[in-house]
């Protein structure tokens, strides 16, 4: 794991261009509103996963509670807009700032924990958020959820949202890749390899872990807020443990320490359940089986495994 994170050559802007082209060309293949909806969902999940991958794939810290940040972003912006009448273009950035502050305050003590203890602490945070959201029904509407006002009167309809989410996704990937190529990113990868060795080289492990945590929380909150304003409705299920697990699964499935792996993981695992609704009763069994089989046979995840296979065939041809 450590070697794959360290050995990856990056810096080329080609993949980013490729992503932008895919996003620009995809509408030609989207026949109706439903497929646009799925594409928007993919984009929103991908934004979360690109951030989460910084934390899990690069800094090597697990989080089983990022749906909590997703939910806080969604409900924060929704409550300010719906209950207090703030315009969404104010409520959204204010919420993001508040979530970033919260992530910083929570991350400081719990990122000292390692491995399973960190998994437990982040999981606990996520569950606390989802219970609070489901219980404070005067503000949040309780388990049934609440209606959310639109982002702005002119932003409505699947097509406009598609371009908005697509642009945010490209921005998120660009940010993440810049970060990974910066000294900060190299420090993160060093942490993933060995925290002790990184410390010996003068890398402030705690500060770098915390910044990855805050950035990933911010991405999750942004995707959450966008999804709330897009759907016009939000329920506490979006902040649940199961949603946290879905997000981590997308990152690991696509391939840790691979930004495009995170995007591909989000795309595959968001569309798969949509396709599997044909086999309604078997959906859970198939999803569970697909997860287990990919992780057993491709423990590095989809994209790194494919990249490696591609490189091997190229080497053979030479």
């Amino acid at each position, binding site marked *: 794991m450590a070697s794959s994170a360290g050995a990856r050559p990056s810096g080329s802007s080609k993949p980013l261009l490729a992503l932008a082209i895919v996003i620009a060309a995809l509408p030609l293949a989207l026949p109706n509103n439903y497929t646009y909806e799925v594409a928007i969902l993919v984009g929103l999940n991908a934004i979360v996963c690109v951030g989460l991958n910084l934390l899990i794939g690069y800094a090597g810290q697990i989080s089983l509670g990022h749906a909590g940040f997703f939910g806080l972003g969604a409900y924060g912006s929704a409550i300010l807009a719906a209950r207090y009448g703030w315009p969404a273009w104010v409520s959204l950035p204010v919420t993001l700032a508040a979530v970033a502050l919260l992530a910083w305050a929570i991350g400081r003590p719990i990122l000292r924990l390692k491995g399973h203890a960190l998994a437990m602490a982040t999981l606990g945070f996520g569950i606390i958020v989802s219970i609070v959201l489901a219980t404070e029904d005067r503000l949040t509407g309780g388990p049934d959820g609440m209606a959310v006002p639109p982002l702005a009167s002119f932003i409505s309809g699947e097509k406009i949202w598609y371009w908005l989410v697509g642009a945010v996704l490209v921005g998120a990937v660009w940010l993440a890749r810049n970060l990974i190529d910066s000294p900060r990113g190299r420090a993160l990868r060093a942490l993933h390899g060995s925290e002790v060795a990184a410390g010996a080289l003068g890398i402030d492990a705690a500060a770098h872990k915390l910044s990855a945590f805050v950035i990933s929380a911010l991405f999750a909150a942004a995707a959450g807020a966008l999804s709330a304003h897009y759907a016009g409705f939000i329920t506490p299920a979006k902040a649940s443990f199961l949603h946290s697990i879905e997000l981590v699964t997308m990152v690991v499935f696509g391939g840790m320490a691979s930004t495009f792996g995170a995007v591909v993981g989000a795309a595959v695992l968001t569309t798969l359940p949509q396709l599997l609704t044909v086999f309604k009763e078997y959906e859970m069994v198939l999803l569970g089986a697909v997860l287990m089989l990919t992780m057993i046979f491709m*423990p590095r995840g989809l994209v790194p495994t494919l990249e490696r296979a591609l490189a091997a065939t190229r080497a053979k041809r030479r």
Partner: protein
Amino acid sequence: MLEQYLLSGITTGAIYALVALGFAIIYNASHVINFAQGEFVMIGGMATAAFFEAGIPLPAAVVLSIATATLVGVLLEKLAVEPAREASVVTLIIITIGASILLRGLATLVWDKKIHRVPAFSGEAPIAIGSATLLPQVLWVLGVSAVAVALLAWFFRRTLTGKAIIAVSHNRLAARLMGISVRRVLAVSFGLSAALGALAGVLIAPIAFTSWDVGVMLGLKGFAAAILGGLGSSTGAVVGGLALGLIEALGAGYISSAYKDVFAFVIIIAALVFLPNGLLGRRAAERV
């Protein structure tokens, strides 16, 4: 009121302790956190309900359902965990999460999505003790859990297989050099912790009902209890389970029942930050 809260806290605590012991056994033998542990609890309750509804007498249904869960546990180890031995911790976590989704899905196919009830082992008439009342099933929960914990302690201290599991948890390579079959130890630990989980599921089903999705929260609570007590310590798992049950019951009774899980998790996070090795965990030095 206090007696009533303490009683209900110890009852749920005993269930959490059994689930936490399952986590501890698997973690010790394989360093895997088995996120499918809660599904063994679900299989215990649901299989008992199904066997009983099919006309099998209750005691036989209980034994059959624990046997079913044990088999599932061994299969999980052989088919999913062993092939991925070299994988990273996160990958192994995702594999067991996949297994838990798969098992929940199978439960809805083999059985259904309805809520089921298992009859109490010895009647429903409440017994009065001082100012508190308790259901006879509570005595079953406490008694059987105590016996299970005692048997487990005997198993790990006195039997060759138990000692082999402890040896593997200390040093896998050294254990193998001593002629211990690590593969067998792994299979036994998964089977054992599946049986413990199923036992918890059977015991609690007459009090709390059972359905295809009860395993998620019970599994999380068991994991929390195991971490609270100190991951890998059997005594810690029991102490952590009881502590978690009591925190929840007292929080629900005196402060707010809607927020009982919140208290539990706030205290766990605080405990982790201030006691990173759990209540009874060994202070571990990190190997560089």
